[in-house]
């Protein structure tokens, strides 16, 4: 459900669906009716387990996948009806940082060429200006000047991910979709990159759609958080509220699974209420998709899929019993 904000949200996703056909004539509903808004300058995080559709959601929003149904509005305008020119502007304004810093950089290009590549298309500036800008960007993400003529294989994972950030920044975007940008990195390097993303947001008023399964990180950086399960949002809200008082049973299961030292037995007993195995995505359960794992499931859960219901000012959950 849309969050209320006075101005038009930068990104507004409504009823987004993305189905993938599979052999034997079925479909996988990777994203099945997801709606949320992101206000300018804010961070919205999508969390969930692998296969829940969070990455597909991010990619469909940017048009990397063609959506099956639903609407994606950027700055109030529907992206589907964009003219060629508008579409080009959208691709400049909405950038992406990828999960795998090893796979997302062309091994045959120098770091400078990688950072400059997008500029050729979008900025009518001279080669020397591009070079200057590339150097500026490298400095901005904390890489030494000399890296401009290096190749990706000479860099560590953390350095490569910085290059990925510099490449995204090169086009002066407003929105950056960060698809698990930290999962390939070690904790100490993760912290460096989190700090970088936070300071860039504050300086450039960037908007982030942050896709992650790391709940501690999400809690730290996001204003709003959406929890996905089998292609749908089960809970959505202000990060402070959501992490303090998770309402949906799945969110509770997810949060109780984070390993910590405190109150082990309490968390274990929370988890004991849930079934372990995820159902098949081709053949999802009727009604509420979480019911096969949920300890509180009753007959209504198999008949009716719960809709997102408002629980508070900026908090909603899709469960019959909240």
């Amino acid at each position, binding site marked *: 459900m849309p969050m209320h904000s006075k101005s038009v949200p930068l990104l507004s996703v409504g009823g987004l669906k993305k189905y993938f056909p599979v052999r034997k004539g079925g479909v996988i509903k990777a994203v099945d009716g997801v709606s949320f808004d992101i206000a300018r300058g804010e961070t919205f995080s999508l969390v969930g387990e692998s296969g829940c559709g969070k990455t597909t959601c991010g990619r469909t929003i940017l048009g990397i996948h063609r959506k099956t149904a639903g609407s994606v509005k950027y700055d109030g305008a529907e992206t589907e009806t964009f003219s060629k020119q508008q579409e080009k502007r959208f691709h400049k304004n909405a950038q992406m940082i990828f999960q795998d810093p090893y796979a997302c950089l062309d091994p045959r290009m120098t770091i400078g060429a990688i950072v400059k590549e997008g500029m050729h298309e979008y900025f009518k500036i001279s080669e020397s200006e591009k070079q200057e800008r590339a150097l500026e960007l490298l400095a901005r993400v904390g890489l030494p000047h000399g890296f401009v003529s290096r190749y990706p294989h000479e860099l560590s994972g953390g350095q490569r991910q910085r290059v990925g950030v510099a490449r995204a920044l090169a086009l002066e975007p407003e929105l950056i979709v960060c698809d698990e940008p930290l999962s390939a990195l070690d904790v100490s390097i993760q912290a*460096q990159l989190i700090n970088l993303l936070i300071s860039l947001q504050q300086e450039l008023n960037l908007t982030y759609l942050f896709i992650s399964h790391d709940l501690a990180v999400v809690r730290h950086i996001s204003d709003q958080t959406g929890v996905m399960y089998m292609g749908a949002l089960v809970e959505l809200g202000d990060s402070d509220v959501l992490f303090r008082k998770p309402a949906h049973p799945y969110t509770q299961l997810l949060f109780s699974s984070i390993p*910590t*030292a405190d109150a082990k037995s309490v968390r274990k007993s929370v988890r004991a209420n849930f079934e372990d*195995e995820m159902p098949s995505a081709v053949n999802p359960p009727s009604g509420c998709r979480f019911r096969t794992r949920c300890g509180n499931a009753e007959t209504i859960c198999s008949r009716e899929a719960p809709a997102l219901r408002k629980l508070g000012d900026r908090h909603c959950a899709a469960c019959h019993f909240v």
Partner: protein
Amino acid sequence: MTPLLSVRNVNVSFRTQFGEVKAVRDVGFEVTERETLAIVGESGCGKSALAKSILNLHIHGNGIVQEGSEVLYRGENLLKMGKKELNRIRGRKIGMIFQDSMTALNPTSTIGDQIAEPLIIHGVARKNEVKMRVEELLRSVRIADPRERMGSYPHQLSGGMRQRAMIAVSIACSPELLIADEPTTALDVTVQAQILDLLCALKDRTGMAIILITHDMGVVAGFADSVLVMYAGGILERGSKDEIFGGPRHPYTWALLNAIPGKAMARKSRLYSIKGDPPNLLLPIDGCAFAARCAFCMPVCKRCRPKTTKITETHSVRCWLTHELAPKVRRGVNAHAQ
């Protein structure tokens, strides 16, 4: 009490086209019975190379365990054993779980057969009992319909189930020590919690000791009795869980703990981060391996490697800051670990 496992002075290196990489440097520690020891460190710090050297698995790869290294299992040096003797220990007394269950399990054989294999080889179960034991084992790792699942091939199982199947293989002969090398790294949090719960339950029931290798401080906090912090192939700090989380002494341990965003922190506040990258293991390291990235680095740190200082009977640290002449520094801002 004699320790179950005693690792002394272990050095492991790899020959590469660029030169010799010293992956493990002068590592020594002990594991007592029923203890869960976590080895933490970032990628490339040598934790897996160390784990492999315990079972002398490097002879199958290109790792070289240097002369003088000792891994004593109940007093016997595993590194000096012949293949036959070693195979009596591997899988029987010491089991191992690997990070990637897809590559560790044999894709051409059913999980039932793979669990039965150690039982038959070590003669733990009689022929007519094997099937029953396999079923029991599958049930003990909480795989539903064990009888049906026995006939499944690894690719037919989900990641979590495969990991359980691998645990079943490694505990088949009720080993005294289980080495778990990043057993949950490739798994989702909910599945990770299930696997860790399972290992806890198995440990309580069988009383085996566990060496858990991980990079996740959260996992350590939830699971271990004692902790070993590794960096660039060497041990920087060792202590009980409470000592490491409550009163860590090495700046690297501080950094590791502070780098995780905690509940108490303000949203979007700066995280403590370690500047720079780990040292190149191709080059010799003079002094402390962490010196170049340490916020408290002193001139001596770059020249001489610090000795191990005992803080308590269980807590020891390798840092010049523990020297009596060193300035007294306090651990950075906050002390959350959770």
